[in-house]
């Protein structure tokens, strides 16, 4: 098992490489969901403003 983690002496390059990839994938999901939630909030606010102006 330690052979696997040592990656033939290249662990300091291989694991950061995969670690940074995981960070980029996770950031993409988080940022996309944040954008969609913010857009939903803005749309809901716009709807509420239109409703209050109509009253």
């Amino acid at each position, binding site marked *: 098992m330690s052979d696997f983690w040592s990656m033939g*002496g290249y662990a300091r390059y291989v694991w950061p*490489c995969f670690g*940074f990839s995981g960070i980029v994938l996770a950031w993409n999901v988080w940022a996309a969901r944040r954008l969609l939630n*913010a857009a939903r909030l803005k749309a809901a606010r*716009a709807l509420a403003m239109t409703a209050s102006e109509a009253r």
Partner: protein
Amino acid sequence: MWTWFYKLASPPYVFGVAAALMPWLFGAAALAIGYGLVAGLGIAPPDYQQGEAFRMIYVHVPSAILSVTVYTIMATASAVALIWRIKVGHAVAAASAPIGASFTLLTLVTGSLWGRPMWGTYWAWDPRLTSELILLFLYVGVMSLRSAFEDPARGDRAAALLAVVGVVNVPIVHFSVVWWNSLHQGATIVTLEGPKMPGSMLWPLLSMWLGFMLFYGAVLCIRVRGEVLNRERQSAWVREAIKS
């Protein structure tokens, strides 16, 4: 014949299709990336020259292919938006830019990490590396230009124009290793003689590539929904969608 094209130009249709596709794309991406990781890290044999360091190929190459593919999709969507004045085109381009930029950065970082043990340096002003860096600057430029205008429609048009002009860099990235002397290795997968890798190394790579493409599709679906909502929030169909 053109019905599908007109449907794709309809924001409510795109909003609904993106919502339906997203979970399937995420599921398929998780399967493909999961298999690619297990087979790439645990089953594929070490390279006879690079040893275990070659395993960085399983994230570097898929992200590099994605970086140019996303740019091409962004430029195509921008061209469609400019030529046919289709607003969804701008939404797709705006949604693609941050995803493409993040995968271009990933390509540069993983390439640097791979370059240090193989070339003895994290960075060299090599044609492939430099053109990939220019690609990152183009993504940043497109995103900055879009947000630089008070009028979003003008920002969309300016960003679309830069995206279309910048597509000239895509073939430069791809052929840089052929046109100029380069530290970077040439094509390994798509060659006239066929792939230069044995199946035990190739299949995990193809699986990771497919997984990254599916992941892009899934994230694009979320972002496109957000962009469409932002652009259409005064529309009746958005009001109905928010109410329900």
